């Protein structure tokens, strides 16, 4: 079973802090990590490979420094990695990103399954996975929390819903986006780390991918960010004081009652 895992390098939100004076994001010194949701996709890919054979290829689109995310994936046990990078891809929104990734996957050609995290922690759109599936005209299952069974032909998976889950049968090749519940990502291995240091990671540019120049980068992105601002933190900030828990509870209820009506 050959699996492609799409990953993204994101700033570690655990490091992101707000400057209390200017109320702006402090980005300095923030580490880059693999999008936490993509870790579950990587782990699931490795587990499927361990069980069914085949190989796992990780791909990412991003600036040259995103290569380190691919090396981390290799340290976990991914077999190969490809970096999709070109200045022409800069400014891509989810449409252009999913188009570009789908061209790269098309070039890889041999695969049974594509795995993505359910969304990226910096953009939170959850649009790129389904976007790739659509560009490639593949069936998709989003929010997969368990792969119940899988063979060359088809898979039965559990898709998370707001109320519980659906059991979905889907023919392969297909694209799944996965949620945290699906597994517990493993730490890298020492041998994996040694391999990750040495392995050659090919770089694919716009030219390599035979892309439509009108569908990539800023030009190929229907959406445009026109403004970025920091949300105002409004409202009162009050610590309720009191002699006893009962007194504090009563005071709080008094404050909250108007909200409940």
């Amino acid at each position: 079973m050959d699996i492609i895992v799409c990953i993204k390098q994101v700033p570690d939100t655990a490091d992101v802090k707000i400057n209390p004076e200017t109320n702006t994001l402090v980005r300095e010194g923030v580490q880059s990590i693999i999008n936490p949701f993509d870790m579950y996709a990587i782990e699931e890919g490795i587990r499927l490979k361990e069980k069914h054979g085949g190989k796992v290829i990780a791909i990412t689109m991003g600036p040259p420094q995103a290569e380190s995310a691919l090396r981390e994936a290799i340290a976990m046990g991914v077999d190969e990695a490809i970096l999709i990078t070109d200045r022409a891809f800069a400014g891509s929104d989810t449409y252009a990103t999913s188009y570009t990734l789908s061209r790269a996957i098309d070039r890889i050609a041999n695969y049974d399954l594509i795995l993505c995290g359910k969304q990226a922690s910096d953009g939170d759109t959850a649009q790129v996975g389904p976007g790739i599936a659509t560009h490639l005209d593949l069936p998709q299952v989003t929010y997969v929390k368990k792969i119940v069974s899988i063979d060359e032909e088809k898979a039965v998976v559990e898709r998370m819903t707001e109320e519980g889950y659906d059991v979905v049968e889907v023919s392969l090749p297909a694209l799944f986006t996965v949620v945290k519940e699906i597994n517990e990502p493993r730490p890298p291995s020492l041998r994996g780390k040694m391999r990750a240091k040495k392995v050659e990671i090919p770089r694919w540019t716009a030219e390599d991918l035979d892309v439509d120049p009108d569908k990539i980068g800023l030009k190929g992105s229907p959406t445009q960010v026109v403004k970025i601002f920091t949300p105002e933190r409004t409202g009162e900030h009050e610590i309720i004081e009191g002699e006893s828990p009962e007194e504090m509870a009563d005071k709080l209820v008094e404050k909250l009652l108007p909200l409940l009506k």
Partner: protein
Amino acid sequence: MDYLLTEFQQEIRDLAWEIARDKVMPVAQELDEKNEFPHEIMKILAQSDFFRLFVPEEYGGLVENGKGMLELCLVTEQLARACGGVAVTYAATALGIFPIILYGNEEQKKKYLPRVAEGTLAAFAVTEPSAGSDISAIQTTARKEGDYYVLNGTKHFITNGGEADIYVVIAMTNKAKGPRGASAFIVEKGTPGFEFGKKEDKMGIRASATRELIFNECKVPKENLLGREGMGFIITLKTFDMSRPGVAAQALGIAQGAFDLALDYVRKREQFGRPISSFQGIQWMLADMATKIEAARALVYSVARMADAGHTDIAKESAMAKMFASDVAMEVTTDAVQLFGGYGYMKEYPVEKFMRDAKITQIYEGTNQIQRNVIAQHLIKEALK
């Protein structure tokens, strides 16, 4: 302090710490409370190749033959920063296979070491109810019968007992010869006549399994004899020489873990309107604790390097490291509890566990009194030269 670790050693240390922080810390309290063996964590350590660090390359490991002591110490230290019980479970497997690495023949190495490299746990069984520090008092016997040795007797306080698949057991093949009559055998879990007895309910390192091994007419193939008959005593001594740095590293990690908690706490805890870290009395305690830990680390890493450099007689140095680091662990963890004040005494806070975990490091793998004997004997012997 810069210990001039190689890039690979730094990576080993950092990855071990990541696993300790992300996988061990969140469950340390629960494992301790429930006396629960860390199967999941051992699986992760195996998957991440940490068991390959004490297995030579030709048997599926990652180190050159005769090396890897410093790496073992680095990992054990990092794990112990999160949980002393998890650390000893890992290090005890190294202890369990040192006799095979040191004295095993090619067949024995080929048969057992690759399994350990993949994550099979091992254990070393010497101690008996009436043979603790005094190895010559061992009662377990092994009598030769054709192609087998038949083992009878009981080992107790065996780390990884019941959980390990591979055991090295010291038994008397000739009681009349005293210590010279002891031999070492590899015994696999599941061998008829080999059973497990009582599981101990311990003060600390509760995540680790400590159990009784019972041999009742247990037939072990004669190929499982390590070295020759009568070598049991020397195998034991040499094994402990090799394993003491690991215990010392465990103690070092426990001290560091408690210190990290204490340093974090005193910076946040406010009394009299300011963080208690601003009081000089507290500052002096911190300075003493950190200095002791660093001194212990220097000693532990140095002896590990001696072992890796091929020194065969490291008895004195490894005894010094084990004794010093474990005494430091006890002192530092006690002080850490003190810095937490009343909270430190409560099980809700993690620091008291470190104090409980620290105590055993002064006792096992030879009590610190025995370590002092070893050190003194070597000093006197050296003076005679």
